[in-house]
């Protein structure tokens, strides 16, 4: 039996930080909660790296930790009265001409709202597969689902998003 070489946690962080942040921010719709999730995810990955057996992709393994953290935040939030101030705008200032920025900002706001309206389980599958471009197999591993369940969720997510984004298509 061969042991897969253990990647350094910093290298892993450099490669996956934005993807993990995207997943966490899209799931929680809260930048600060998402930053906390990124930190907690990589700290947990660091302490558990020796338990990773080299089966499947390490990216999927990291995303799985982040997904569990995000679900935990959503669960805690359900037990608390919702503070509207915690739902923060995720739109960042795009680069380019003022005209293009206004358009992009508007589109980005619509994309945010549309994805935020999805059920969390659909959102996770959609973000990992369509936004981050993971393979169906890695998404299945990250979300602990079968590949056919992932494909089903993806199609449902895209159908729901299409309704919200009709004017842009």
């Amino acid at each position, binding site marked *: 039996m061969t042991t897969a070489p253990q990647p350094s946690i910093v290298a892993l962080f450099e490669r996956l930080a934005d993807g993990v*942040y995207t997943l966490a921010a899209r799931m929680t719709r809260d930048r600060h909660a998402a930053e906390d999730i990124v930190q907690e995810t990589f*700290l947990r990955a660091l302490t558990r790296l020796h338990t990773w057996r080299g089966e499947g992709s390490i990216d999927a393994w990291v995303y799985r930790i982040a997904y569990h953290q995000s679900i935990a935040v959503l669960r805690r939030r359900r037990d608390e009265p919702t503070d509207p101030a915690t739902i923060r705008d995720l739109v960042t200032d795009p680069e380019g001409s003022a005209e293009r920025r206004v358009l*992009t900002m508007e589109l980005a706001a619509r*994309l945010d709202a549309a994805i935020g309206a999805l059920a969390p389980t659909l959102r996770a599958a959609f973000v990992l597969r369509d*936004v981050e471009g993971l393979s169906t197999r890695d998404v299945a591993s990250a979300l602990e689902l079968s590949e056919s369940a992932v494909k089903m969720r993806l*199609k*449902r997510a*895209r159908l729901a998003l*299409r309704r919200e984004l009709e004017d842009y*298509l």
Partner: protein
Amino acid sequence: MTELTCDELDALLPELFDGRLSPEVESASLRHLATCDQCRIVVGDLERVGEMYREHGRLTLPDDARARIRAILEQG
């Protein structure tokens, strides 16, 4: 079975994608898609939705958070 209208097909799309239609309804759906440009565009939209998010949906971890977390990990 009789031919489907565009609205009927649209309502059946979730089940079609999930493979939950009866064989007769599924083949009627595919027949409709093969001959109807408008509905093929709808299905093409779903690809476009994915593309739009690939292009605009990614977020970047803010620099201050990135620096803070990297420092914590480097102390490991």
